[in-house]
């Protein structure tokens, strides 16, 4: 395999796990109240990629998800809409039709999600098919095995090829951090993905635990920041998996605010990959506005 220019001579900085955990703990001690909290909750909704990635997904289920994306809570018509609906390639067309004209993007996983264990030709074909079907965004998985084995050139080339296959569609690169094992590996994979053409880097498939832990996300945000400082290029971030409460989401926003700054508090640069987060955020918004805690059954699935 040819050496990709993206991997020619770069070194990722070392990461000290304990230091990262301490920084996260300190960020988690921020206390977000009142207006700041409400603002954060609205922002969170606008950043959600409403996701369904099950073998049992049906056209009906995807249409229902799209309806939810269009109208999160009938009682609160002034809420922002979510950023995207994320589905398997086979259901991209359904979602695209349901969301037409809404400004909500359709994201498709591809490249033999979630394991990525397929020949490159098949992965690229899958990407092209998803884009043809209308996907605005493609969420690919990296070949973790190659990365762990130290074959960064392979991964770099694979990402570059997928990027090419995406055409106009935005590329999110899933590192599957739960399989990378160390924060050093997370940092290395983040740098690799950004240098190889990722528009977003994303923690996880949602199929593996641990997923989007705060230390992992912080290391990825710092990689994005360093990439920006070096190149001026703003790469987006998408934590996915395990963020299910409004409190978690606000902690993530604090982390973004203090690592990358205000510019990244934007759905164009930050997304939450989540299925149950939206309803907890809605519950909190209603509580902030009305003072009364809601039942989860007050919100649609």
């Amino acid at each position, binding site marked *: 395999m040819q050496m990709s220019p993206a991997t020619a001579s770069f070194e990722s900085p070392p990461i000290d796990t304990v230091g990262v*955990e301490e920084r996260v703990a300190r960020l988690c001690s921020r206390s977000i109240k009142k207006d700041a909290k409400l603002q954060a909750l609205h922002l969170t909704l606008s950043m959600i990629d409403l996701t369904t990635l099950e073998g049992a997904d049906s056209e009906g289920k995807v249409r229902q998800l799209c309806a939810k994306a269009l109208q999160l809570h009938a009682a609160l018509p002034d809420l922002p809409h979510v950023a995207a609906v994320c589905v398997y390639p086979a259901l991209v067309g359904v979602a695209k039709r349901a969301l037409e004209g809404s400004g909500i993007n359709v994201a498709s996983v591809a490249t033999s999600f979630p394991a990525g264990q397929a020949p490159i030709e098949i992965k690229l074909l899958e990407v092209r098919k998803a884009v043809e079907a209308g996907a605005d965004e493609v969420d690919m998985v990296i070949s973790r095995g190659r990365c762990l084995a130290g074959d960064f050139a392979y991964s770099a080339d694979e990402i570059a090829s997928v990027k090419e296959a995406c055409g106009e569609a935005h590329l999110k690169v899933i590192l599957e951090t739960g399989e990378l094992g160390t924060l*050093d590996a997370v940092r290395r994979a983040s740098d690799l993905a950004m240098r190889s053409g990722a528009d977003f880097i994303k923690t996880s498939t949602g199929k593996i635990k641990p997923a989007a832990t705060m230390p992992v996300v912080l290391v990825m945000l710092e990689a994005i920041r360093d990439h920006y400082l070096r190149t001026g290029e703003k790469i987006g971030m998408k934590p996915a998996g395990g963020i299910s409460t409004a409190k978690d989401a606000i902690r993530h926003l604090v982390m973004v605010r203090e690592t990358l700054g205000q510019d990244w508090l934007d759905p164009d640069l930050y997304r939450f990959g989540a299925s149950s987060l939206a309803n907890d955020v809605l519950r909190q918004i209603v509580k902030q506005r009305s003072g009364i805690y809601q039942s989860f059954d007050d919100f649609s699935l």
Partner: protein
Amino acid sequence: MSEQRPAAAADRLPVLKTHKVYVGGKFPRSESGRLDRALAPDGTPIANICRCSRKDVRDAVTAARAAQAGWAARTAYNRGQILYRIAEMLEGRSGQFEALLAAGGTTPDQAAAEVQTATDRLLHYAGWTDKFQQVFSSVNPVATSHFNFSILEPMGLVGVLAPESPLLGLVSSIAPAIAGGNTTVVLVTGSQPLPATTFGEVLNSSDVPGGVVNILTGRRDEMLAPLAAHRDVDALLLCSPDPGIARSAEIEAVHNLKRVAVRPHDDWKNIQSPYEITDLQEVKTTWHPIGS
């Protein structure tokens, strides 16, 4: 002392010994050129010794400082071997030291016993060099994800006011200091300085690096204050039963907050323990994260 007395055989004049100081591994005279007489108990002069000046103190501190990092960096095993070597040399010269002690008024039996105890004491501390750290350091179970340990490090440069006890006291004050990696400037101001100057020769023939032990003879009121006030001296070991002496030295020591250990003993026979070493050690605590 034998070398000062008329020769037993009329046909040979004895060679008289000049007692010089021991600084930086060499045997210079005092820069001041001044001399004092060492006296026998009956007041008879038995030898000339150097009467060192404050400049001699300064030079000795320079030598001790230059030697300190290297001495502390020796392995504990190596320092132990060198202390053992001192014991070997002292054993080999036991007759000479017995004679020196006897000339100072000690009975022959006591002199022999003192030389033996001094030799054994060196051996005792030779054995501690690679053990006191194990006994007195600690791993501290902190409540965060850190590996935390406290070790002993030598205080550095120790100024020693040597005790009156001319050999056993001298050895008992120097040995624990150097066993722990310190270097020393030793002020010999007692009534019997000759065992100390001769002990310098033992040190010099024992693989002790120059500057680790520096031995000055002279008067306490001239040498102690400059040593105690010297800002490049880290600690003082004051072997004197006189609280006034300790007090005045301690006041001078405040300049750079020297650590001060006072040994008021007259009898050094049982003054032997690892605490003699640890009293001249600092505790250093190091933290390091445990992560991946």
